[in-house]
């Protein structure tokens, strides 16, 4: 049911959820599909405008790379940087085994 009805939506929510690394429940997928279809129908309004020759604007101000002098500066001590980790040992962040 969920698989077949997802084809009628503008967005393929299960696919996008995989890209975004979120396991969604079937109920969430169905609900978000309906809700986001409505949002997408609304935002399609911007297709009405002729945008020939208009430069895209990524930022409200002109942003340039700002680099500081290449001198070592004090940074967060390792212990504090690791303090919020859900799992850490020997000064490292621990994750499940990646390679068998």
């Amino acid at each position, binding site marked *: 049911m969920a698989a077949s009805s997802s084809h009628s939506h503008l*967005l393929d929510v299960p696919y*996008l959820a995989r*890209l975004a690394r*979120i396991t969604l429940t079937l109920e969430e997928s169905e609900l978000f599909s309906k809700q986001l279809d409505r949002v997408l129908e609304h935002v399609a309004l911007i297709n009405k405008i002729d945008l020939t020759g*208009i430069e895209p604007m990524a930022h409200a101000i002109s942003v340039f790379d700002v680099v500081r002098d290449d001198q070592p500066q004090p940074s967060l001590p390792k212990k504090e940087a690791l303090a*919020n980790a859900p799992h850490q040992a020997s000064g490292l962040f621990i994750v499940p085994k*990646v390679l068998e």
Partner: protein
Amino acid sequence: MTSYLSITEARRLLVTKKISPLELLTELEQRISTINPKIKAYLSWDHQQARLDAEKADLTKPLGGIPIGIKDAILVQGAPAYSSSRILEGYHAPYDATVIKNLRAAGAYPLGRLNMDEFAMGSSTETSAFHPTYNPWDVSRIPGGSSGGSAAAVAAGIAMATLGSDTGGSIRQPAAFCGCVGMKPTYGRVSRYGLIAFASSLDQIGPLTHTVEDSALLLNAISGVDSHDSTSLLLPKEDFTSEIGQDLKGVRIGIPKEYFVEGIEPGVRTRVEEAIKQMISLGAEPIEISLPHTEYAVSVYYIIVTAEASSNLARYDGVRYGKRSAQTKDLLSLYEQTREEGFGAEVKRRIILGTYVLTSGYYDAYYLRAQKVRRLIRQDFEEAFKKVDLIVSATSPETAFRCGEKINDPLKMYLADIFTIAANLAGICGMSLPCGFASKEGKDLPVGLQLIGPSFGEKMLFRVGHAYQQATEWHTQHPSML
């Protein structure tokens, strides 16, 4: 009696030794413990740390001895910072945000963590993973959002002033709904270092206060260039209070016809029109203007904001900080389950929409087009500010809505941001201040007047806002049921 004290009044009491910083804090904390359970503006506060800060307050500094409530998205060293999300539960900030450092340098200190919509995604504070916040004027209604805790705390007199953040109206709209002053500075005016990122090209931290004067004082303290934020701008140090006290003679106020259309609650419209008349009677000159791309602003905003959010929130992966799911088999399921369990529905919806608009094949149709329309929206304002000094409108087309009224209809929630989001897209400054009350369903609810200024036009907003507050008493009214 220290309820509803403004910063300016509190400073007078402190400097003349009528009250000590510790007495001021103690009275405020007593009020918090009585009133906060009714409106739930604060998520938490640290008595001991606040006491230490109050005891060592330096009254010679401009904000010496003043406690400031902090939105949960802004880092305070050693304090929890969850951005009202489960995924950051347990996180304690390892450093102070630059605005906090700046507040401390001015003599103020942070007090408490204020509730918000999860990662600032929402207009009602109902998407907080912990609990909603209630409007002090009617606790069956929302306080607005996303800085709902910051606005409700000021309105209820359980904070003298607070900091919020504004990505699409998240300071101004809750200020309007709660009847206080909320200001979004020009993009780049205030460092974003230590603000938990939502949409980095739009986010800006700003003050929520009782008075316009307090707002200028707080902006004095928090603004300035910062080597930790490459988008913070190197500008000459200014005193934002310097034009406060000047009258409105010759000030040209723009009235955009696109902001006075169908769909505005009649009570809101009437109050805003009265406020404009008041400004004219004080010497301001009204000029009708047009911002022709207004109807596209919501669409542009929800494409750009979700795109940036989907990228910013990729960092919550259960590895370096915050929550990690217990249901993990391998690295992929660790990411996927952590994010499924840690994010609420609105955050997931926005990440998915943002992922979609950035997907190759749709990028040009949505994200790139939206960036082009964003330029047109900015150009609308540039044209308008050739003719006027500031623009006046309602902050929101409505007054505070009922809890639960819109939470299941995201599009309806988004459309109500129509008057605030253009200022973020254009990067210009804006402020909401109380301009009276409108009756809705038998309740008198605060109405917000929005002043929009050009880039770096904050002084004009403070001048006009202050003159308006000198001539009116709306900002001196407080909720009665508390």
